[in-house]
């Protein structure tokens, strides 16, 4: 068939063939509000739901090329190649050195990244507002923008909606939320951090309180209470990072209950507001061995830098 022809790729070094592969990329356009900048590292990431189909398409093209010849196969199956590809294509991992040292499969991570900062285990199957509302008791009202409290911005620079509780306990309940999806069982050996965050605020004209409770399937519990005095209408982000479970015995599920109410017994929704409820896995930070809860006040002027 082709006796006089030579495979032209033979004379190219591996780095160059990899370079050709690196340039195969499908990417959404960078637009205001669809990505988050990380000033410290000069990188950014896209919203997870926006980015995922593009990543899958790129992955599909590249894995097709694996079948062309042995050399392509070896290059495209190398973890080092995919680590670079993740980095270049803005696949946000978090703690890259840790990811490398724990032997995470970057090839799979490229299209299925449970550590994406925007990936919320609580919103997996529900993206429309009605589906999300079902987890709240009926006496809680949804506010497109907070009424009586400061505005709250998300990491993309958009104003967040919130849920406002009333004079009787209003409650958000999620039972047995699965922490690992099918196929992610190997992540157990990395001992990821289970991170829960929620933003809470009171109204300027009414004091209120809230209770948070997490029950993990291994028996571990975390409880938190916060009250808001009259006039405190700023948002506060509450974070809990569960780190200190037995090695390789990460819990499989967690149940969540959030409750809030006002302290004046007023008709209407003057109780604690909740927003940006998020549950996700994350890579441990350096020297992170203890469980940690902390609170950040979201100052109104802290509008995220949007390119």
């Amino acid at each position, binding site marked *: 068939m082709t006796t006089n022809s030579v495979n032209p790729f033979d004379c190219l070094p591996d780095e*160059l063939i990899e370079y050709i592969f690196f340039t195969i990329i499908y990417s959404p356009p960078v637009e205001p509000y669809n990505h988050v900048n990380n000033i410290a590292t000069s990188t950014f990431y896209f919203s997870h739901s926006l980015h995922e189909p593009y990543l*899958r398409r790129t992955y599909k093209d590249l894995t097709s090329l694996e079948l062309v010849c042995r050399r392509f196969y070896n290059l495209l199956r190398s973890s080092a190649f995919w680590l670079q590809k993740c*980095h270049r294509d803005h696949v946000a991992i978090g703690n890259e050195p840790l990811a490398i040292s724990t032997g995470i499969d970057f090839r799979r991570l490229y299209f299925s990244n449970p550590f994406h900062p925007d990936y919320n285990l609580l919103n997996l199957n529900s993206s429309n507002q009605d589906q999300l509302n079902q987890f709240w008791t009926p006496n809680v009202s949804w506010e497109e923008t907070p009424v009586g409290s400061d505005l709250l911005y998300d990491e993309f620079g958009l104003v967040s909606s919130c849920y406002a509780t009333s004079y009787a306990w209003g409650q958000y309940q999620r039972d047995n939320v699965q922490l690992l999806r099918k196929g992610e069982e190997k992540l157990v050996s990395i001992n990821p951090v289970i991170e829960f965050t929620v933003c809470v605020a009171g109204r300027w004209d009414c004091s209120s309180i809230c209770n948070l409770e997490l029950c993990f399937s291994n028996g571990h519990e975390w409880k938190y209470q916060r009250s808001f005095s009259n006039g405190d209408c700023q948002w506060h982000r509450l974070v809990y990072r569960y780190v200190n479970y037995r090695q390789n015995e990460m819990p499989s599920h967690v149940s969540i209950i959030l409750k809030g109410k006002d302290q004046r017994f007023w008709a209407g929704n003057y109780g604690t507001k909740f927003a940006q409820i998020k549950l996700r896995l994350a890579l441990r930070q350096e020297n992170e061995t203890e469980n940690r809860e902390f609170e950040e006040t979201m100052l109104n002027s802290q509008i995220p830098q949007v390119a």
Partner: protein
Amino acid sequence: MATTTDSSNTSATTTTENATSKTIKIQSNDGETHEIDQGVVEQSSTIKTLSDLMDLGDVPIPLPNVKGSILTPIVEFCNYHKNDPKPEPLDDDDDDDPNKDIYEPKRSDDICEWDQNFIKRFTVQEGTLFDIIMASISCAANYLGIKTLLAVGCKTIANMVRGKASSEVREMFNISYDPPGEGLNAPNAIESQAGTVPTTQDTSATGPSPQPDPMN
């Protein structure tokens, strides 16, 4: 006085003489000489290094790995691009990457029109496309180290292969089939799985996998 390049082996454009511009000569491995100005020199990391290091005068730099039929269009490419703004260094480049200053991977669909027309003159069949790419890289002092042309060439190849079935790619580049797997019976099973993306996170469905993957 400026002269334009033609396809025979005479000098390339010279700029108007002034005190700060200097031209140097380069010579292909089959004896063609080109005289190039500073704007062209800047684009080739190899030539630039050499001309910075020493005063060459009239002696042409020999390029033993580049033949005249390839060198002439390369000089043409560099002359076209010599007034391009220098690209800003990318902040998110990996500082440890030894290839950092050569490879600037971006997307493959942002090649400008002049470059597209230029690169069309070189084909895979005649081997000229790969000749251009090889001449542009700089893994050895014999090559030229021209980032922009390298990018255009590689992106062109990327565009040729993206979205194609592996058998089409093999045919395009005359690559012989050597599956890293069981044998002649493997190909059919593999081809039918080509390019599949697992929709669930099932460990057994990671796409075409002719060999048990140690990573899985």
